[in-house]
Every structure is written in C-alpha cells, then in structure tokens.
C-alpha cells in the first residue's frame, strides 16, 4: 500500500476526469493522474510518462531508469507480485 509500483502511461482515457491507462509490468489498468498534471504537464502530454502508482493514483513522475530499478527491487522484496495481483484482480484492470 505504501511502496507503490512504477508504471508507464500508455493512453489517456478521460481528459476531464484525468483518467489514464498505465502499463505496470505488463498489467494494464486505469488510474487517476490528477496529482501529476499541471500547467507544465497537461493531461494530453502524459502518454509515455513513467509514474509511481499508489492505490490507483499516479503520485510522482519518475525517470525510466528509476522505474526499472524500483520494479526490480520490489520483485526482490517480494512486494511486486502481491501488488500486481491486486491490480490485476481489480475491476479497473484490463488484459
């Protein structure tokens, strides 16, 4: 719940509601990106961005290298699997 997991924004689903689809280690789900958009980063420009996803919300932008390292450490810690299962089993996910 507190560690979060990195994902890459692959599609904007709803500009007004700030909803986007992320790919988290191959699992896709819809998340809310309200916390990482601002004037410098409008919703439309978020595709491709790497973000740290906490309970379905993007909470920070991270760079690609950081994302890869974080994912690896979560895998080593045994946290990634639980998080991915939670994401995959939730109604907001899609294959």
């Amino acid at each position, binding site marked *: 719940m*507190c560690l979060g997991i990195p994902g890459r924004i692959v599609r904007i689903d709803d500009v007004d509601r700030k909803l986007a689809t992320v790919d988290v280690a191959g699992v896709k789900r819809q*998340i*809310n990106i*309200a916390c990482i958009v601002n004037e410098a980063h409008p919703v439309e420009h978020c595709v491709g961005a790497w973000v740290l996803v906490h*309970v379905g919300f993007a909470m*920070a932008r991270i760079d690609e290298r*950081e994302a890869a*390292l974080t994912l*690896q450490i979560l895998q080593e810690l045994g946290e990634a699997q639980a998080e991915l299962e939670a994401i995959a089993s939730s109604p907001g996910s899609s294959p």
Partner: protein
Amino acid sequence: MKYVDEFRDRDKAAALATEIEKLACSIEGGSTPIHIMEVCGGHTHSIFRYGVEELLPARIELIHGPGCPVCVLPMGRVDDCVAIAEQPNVIFTTFGDAMRVPGSRKSLMQARAEGADVRMVYSPMDALALARAHPDREVVFFGLGFETTMPATALTILQADREAIDNFTVFCNHITIIPTIKAILDSPDVRIDAFLGPGHVSMVIGSAPYDFIARHYRRPLVIAGFEPLDVLQSIWMVLKQIKEGRCEIENQYARVAAAGGNVAALQAIARVYELRPFFEWRGLGSIDHSGVRLRPEYARFDAERRYAIPNARIADPKACQCGEVLKGVLKPWQCKVFGTSCTPQTPAGALMVSSEGACAAYYQYSSAKQRTGARG
C-alpha cells in the same frame, strides 16, 4: 558482512558499510548507542529483508517506527469495520492488508466467512466503481494509511461528489505522520537520536513539515528511499550530521520526493479532510491531531455519520507487546508470544499481519534464513 552479496551494487554497499563504521567510531560518546528510528514500514521491510542491521556497527541501533498503517490500527477500529460490514445491504471494501488484522471478536476475513459482504479492492476508485455498478447497495470504503494514500481517498470523494453518487461512503481512518513523530519525541521512554524520514509520505508533504524536528527537537532527519542502498546512504547522512553537530532535514530521495511535495495532492487533502482532536493508535495510545475526518461539506460521504459505530476502546490482549515493539523498547523477538502464539498465519498483533510490520518482517526474514542456510 555476509549479506552484502545480496545487494545490487555489492561494492557500493560494502564501501558504505565501511564509511558508516568509521563515522560511528569517530562520533563522540564512545560506545553509547546511537538510536535511529526509521519511521516507515517500507524501510522496516527493506532493512529486515536485506539484513541491513548486520552491516551496521553494534553502536547503531535501528528502532522500527510506527509507519505501517495496518500495524497501528487498534482492535476497536477493526470491530468498527466489522460492525459496518455486518449491516444489511452493505458492501464493505478494504485494501487487502487490513483483512487479517484481528479485532476483539473477529477480523474482516472472518466476518466475510460468516456472510458479510467484504471485498478487497486495490484502489478507492474500485470501491466507487462498485457503488456505480450496484446502485441498490451501500458501498463503504475503509480509508487507511498516511499521507501517501490520503490523496487517493480524497480525490475519490471529490469524484463521487461530482457524479452525485449517494450510495458511497468512506470510513476514514487516515492518519498523519507529523503529530505522531512529535508524540514519539515527547514520550518519556523513547530515546531517538535521529530519523530516517518516510520517502513516499514526503513525496506528498514535502520536507518543510519536518523542520520542527531539527529546529525544536534538535534531531537530524534524512528522507530516505526504499532500496537497501538508499537506507545505508541515509544512515551515513544521518551520522555525518551527528558527527558535525548539525541538525537538518536532508533529502536522500530527491529523485522521487520533491522538496515542495505534491501540490495537487496537498490541495485535495486540504479540501476534503479536517484534523480530528485526537486519534487512537495501537500501542501508542491517543495522539492529538493525528487523524483526519471528512469536512462537514462532505458529510454525506462519511460512514461515521451514516452508521452507528461502536467506537469502543479495546485494550490489546495482555500477552501482546506490540506497543513496546512499536516504540522500540522491545525487539520483535523479545515479545513473549513471538513465533509461538503469534505468527503470520495466526497473528495475535497487527505487527505480525502486514509485511511492513516489524514482527512479520523479522519472522519472514529469519525463517527464510533458517530454511536456506545463510541467504535471507
């Protein structure tokens, strides 16, 4: 230094450990222990998983702090959840972490087995989706966590408000880290020389809220990332401050946690929540202003106003020593029931439930070590 093999960058870890040792030796006070509290459960997990303590000189003692939201949930609050979940027509939704926390009568898991409609969700948005999908049912979301998850619940409530969804409420148990650190610093039986600050809480709140720790309490704090190397480097930064007689708030995790925090998240928090006068913590008792509730403007989303909630204060079972472990007075394995009547399969205390809890992390790490010989 037998565990150093496991670090991604073994040389760096070994070099840091050597530097830490040198610094620790050079700090005045001879062999008096230096107590460093890691506030966050994510750090606790990393520390146990990688045997970080084995790399540290004996003089440095890590105290595993209260930063695991599931671990500080008092039994009475679990009873409240069960009471709501057992109301007719309710779908009670929660993060998976909270399912197995024991209440005085039962856990949410047991309530579900007995027929209550309790569902695990990954996100509060999933709870809102359930409310949309089941307009004839009442969906309650158990809002849990520090500032890391607080904005998620707030933004979900704002979304429910925009859509005028009237069968969705939140049982708000979000807690806030700053008053808690202050309470720990004010508590007479705790000795802490410095802190590792929680990386992801800091990503939301920024570094300014910690300033009082350096200025008023004269303790260094380093906001730390979650990799074992991050933890080691942060410990080194803390020691350097101690050695040089500085008390500052430093940020080792600047690559994720910006100094100013996350403005949008802070705005959502400010809009939706207000501080409670006090909030009850497992093991730490009641701490002033340490919890938040929904502002009156969002009362229709507040489960506390919609349901009769027992709100009873239930003392932990006598044998449980979670409070002492949380405050760093006891190590997990020194608890009387550790590994006997309290295991991850049959947890007596919440510190054994979550993988971020010190007892579960220690149990898992030490048993894995025994299973495989040396590697944890």
